[in-house]
């Protein structure tokens, strides 16, 4: 009844090419942003910010990065954790070299280092495809993990081989480090994620997005209509790694406050891949839904017994979480192989014809 596009005629191509051509979608996004930027900081508890929202946002950004590569360009990567690590360690080094530069600027810059490394490990992608490429990215993952521990320069020769986040301020307000308030960090994470996702959406509606999808759908045909496969794939690796790198830097500087090589291990890569696939390959919205589900569910399960007044051992809860998550993954794949984002679309489609479906 309320979700109708009938009557909204576009009179120019510009209007037709808008990110959200339907009025209700625009209103929806505005409301979500309003809630995220205003209502949440005013009401949410520190636990909700620190352990739920900030992680979900950071992981969503990493998932968006992987989605650009796997979902939009069709290149399966298992090196996400490694690329996030590159971002994190690059950001750490940048803060030691340029202690007075704005930390947000440095976080964004660290993405470029990840992009460079990502491009290097994307080089085999011209010759190898599919699962073979996935194994190549696995090489990147293990090699980078090894580097993060074996190159002490990366963590400034810290005895514990870990990087600790120094306190950085902006306008007199602590932004990173233990004294930074959850709200401040949340707002910064939210702004960066919102801006970068907007950029990703822009890329996807323009030429570059189309060339990526063309390569995904049929690389040979794409080549024959003049798309340079190599450049396109490498660009996808670079942009994707940029996003992962920024996510990694945020993970350390705005979420955990500390990291070591093991924070960016193979399990991290798998986790992000789950998010992308559960959320929906080739959907930006899906990256968020996937991250929310995969990160949120264990938290819900962990706290659910308390709310329900049950006393279950925390280890048992954790073990059950594995089972439930696994079953859910299979369940979602069976009911909707295209992920949560497709469910959302189907829901919208239903809404369009509601309440008179015929």
């Amino acid at each position: 009844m309320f979700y109708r596009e009938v009557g909204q005629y576009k009179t120019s191509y510009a209007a037709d090419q808008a990110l959200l051509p339907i009025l209700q979608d625009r209103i929806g996004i505005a409301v979500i942003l309003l809630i995220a930027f205003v209502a949440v900081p005013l009401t949410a508890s520190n636990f909700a910010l620190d352990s739920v929202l900030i992680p979900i946002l950071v992981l969503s950004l990493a998932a968006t990065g992987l989605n650009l590569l796997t979902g939009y360009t069709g290149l399966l990567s298992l090196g996400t954790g490694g690329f996030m690590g590159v971002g994190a360690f690059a950001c750490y080094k940048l803060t030691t070299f340029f202690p007075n530069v704005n930390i947000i600027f440095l976080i964004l810059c660290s993405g470029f280092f990840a992009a460079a490394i990502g491009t290097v490990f994307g080089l085999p992608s011209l010759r190898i495809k599919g699962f073979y490429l996935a194994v190549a990215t696995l090489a990147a993952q293990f090699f980078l993990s090894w580097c993060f521990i074996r190159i002490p320069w990366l963590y400034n020769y810290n005895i514990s081989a870990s990087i600790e986040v120094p306190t950085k301020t902006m306008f007199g307000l602590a932004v990173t480090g233990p004294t930074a308030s959850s709200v401040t960090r949340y707002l910064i994470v939210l702004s960066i994620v919102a801006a970068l996702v907007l950029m990703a959406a822009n890329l996807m509606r323009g030429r570059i997005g189309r060339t990526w999808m063309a390569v995904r759908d049929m690389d040979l045909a794409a080549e024959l209509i003049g798309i340079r496969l190599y450049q396109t794939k490498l660009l996808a690796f670079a942009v994707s790694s940029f996003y992962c790198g920024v996510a990694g830097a945020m993970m350390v500087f705005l979420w955990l406050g500390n990291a070591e090589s093991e924070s960016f291990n193979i399990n991290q890569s798998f986790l992000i891949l789950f998010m992308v696939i559960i959320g929906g390959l080739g959907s930006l919205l899906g990256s968020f839904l996937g991250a929310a589900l995969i990160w949120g569910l264990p938290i819900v399960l962990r706290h659910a017994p308390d709310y329900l007044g049950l006393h279950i051992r925390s280890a048992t809860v954790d073990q059950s979480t594995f089972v439930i998550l696994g079953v859910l993954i299979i369940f979602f794949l069976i009911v909707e192989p295209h992920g949560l984002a497709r469910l959302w679309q189907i829901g919208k489609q239903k809404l369009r014809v509601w309440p008179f479906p015929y």
Partner: protein
Amino acid sequence: MRLKYLVLGAAVAGVIGASVPASEALAKDSMLVPLFTYRTGPFANSGIPIANGMHDYLSMLNARDGGIGGVKINVQECETQYKNEKGVECYDSFKSRHPLVINPYSTGITLALIPKASVDQIPILSMAYGLSASAVGADFPWIFNPPDTYWDGMSIALKYIAQKEGGGFDKLKGKTIGFIYFDGGYGREPIPLLNDFAKEYGFNVKMYPVPPPQMQSQSGLWLGVRRDRPDWMIMWGWGAMNPTAVQEAAKTGYPLDHFIGVWWSGSEDDARPAGAGGKGYLSMNFNAVGANYPAIKDIEKYVIAKGNSQTPKDMVGENFYNRGIMNAVVIAEAIRHAQKLTGKKVIDGADMRRGLETLKISEQRWKQIGLAGFGPPIHVTCADHNGHGSVYVQQWDGKKWVKVSDWIAPVKDKVMPLLDEAAKDYVGKNQPWPKRDEPCDDKTL
């Protein structure tokens, strides 16, 4: 179709629901002691007995004495899977509920929490793990790591080796010592001290790093050991790395009585899988092994027999179970001190910090609590949050651990300068680091 929405809706609602703060009123009649555990994942072999030991001792105090000073201890486990993100999440979920002390049980999680502790006024007890430098009380008023740092441990290992070679450190000259370690923050920590000693006393060091993914596949590394023929091997291992190393050593034909592990490489599960081949393996320890103590009998009586524990009967008295007990003793004694210091019954994190800072467990006190000779005398002060206690060496006889050395004191004059330097380094790298403004308690109890 409908089901899909239900599930999706439930998931979304759940996430939102979880973000509602766990609004638990500050209980007036109990003290919250969270235990960070890992009963799952690749490190569970070490995590389970420790968690059980801590849990059981504190539960025993509740059951036998009605808590400490008449106040019950509210023991709550949080499963970290030995993952930093999970650990930080656990911390955040307890933060607002005023816990007395946090036991991270992971060097990585400890490192992540150190900067937060002073801000949130929650003391952190990392018992003989974590950041060695945090022993410096002037810089880390909220962090405690008794009874020993890894540098103490390394100096003791070398001292023991020197003794076996017939005397002082000068006997090490020309020897080769191999160091096999978990290639992460934890395993790399003792390296500076090892190198210092090597330089000073003229012995060679061979490094054998085990990257985390290779914990259970070390045969390549042990070929290197066979080639290099080190006279002694020292191990800083954890989790599944330990039993694999002991087995590989046995397979390679390395003499196990020349292979000595840190106190985290000394669980029964580390030596047992090697079967008869594991005989002779050495490890350092600072808590006694065995169940023949009144306090442990009380645990069996008040907790395990009542079915209030996850501990299998045969785990009681094992090394890491007792390690957990020792950790719980430190917590309990610190609570007692804090209660005496402040005169309060129900204390909070800030009081607990004072209790930890004046912690003193003498031989007599060990005896009083029914654990005579169980651990070394522990003496924490305002300046020294560690105590640098003595450690003994135990040997696996094929069935159980046997104490084979006296209590050996660490080489403090070598360790202390390193600690100060490391603390200075840490503080320098993490500017602005808060200056200590917590006053020292000079009252001795």
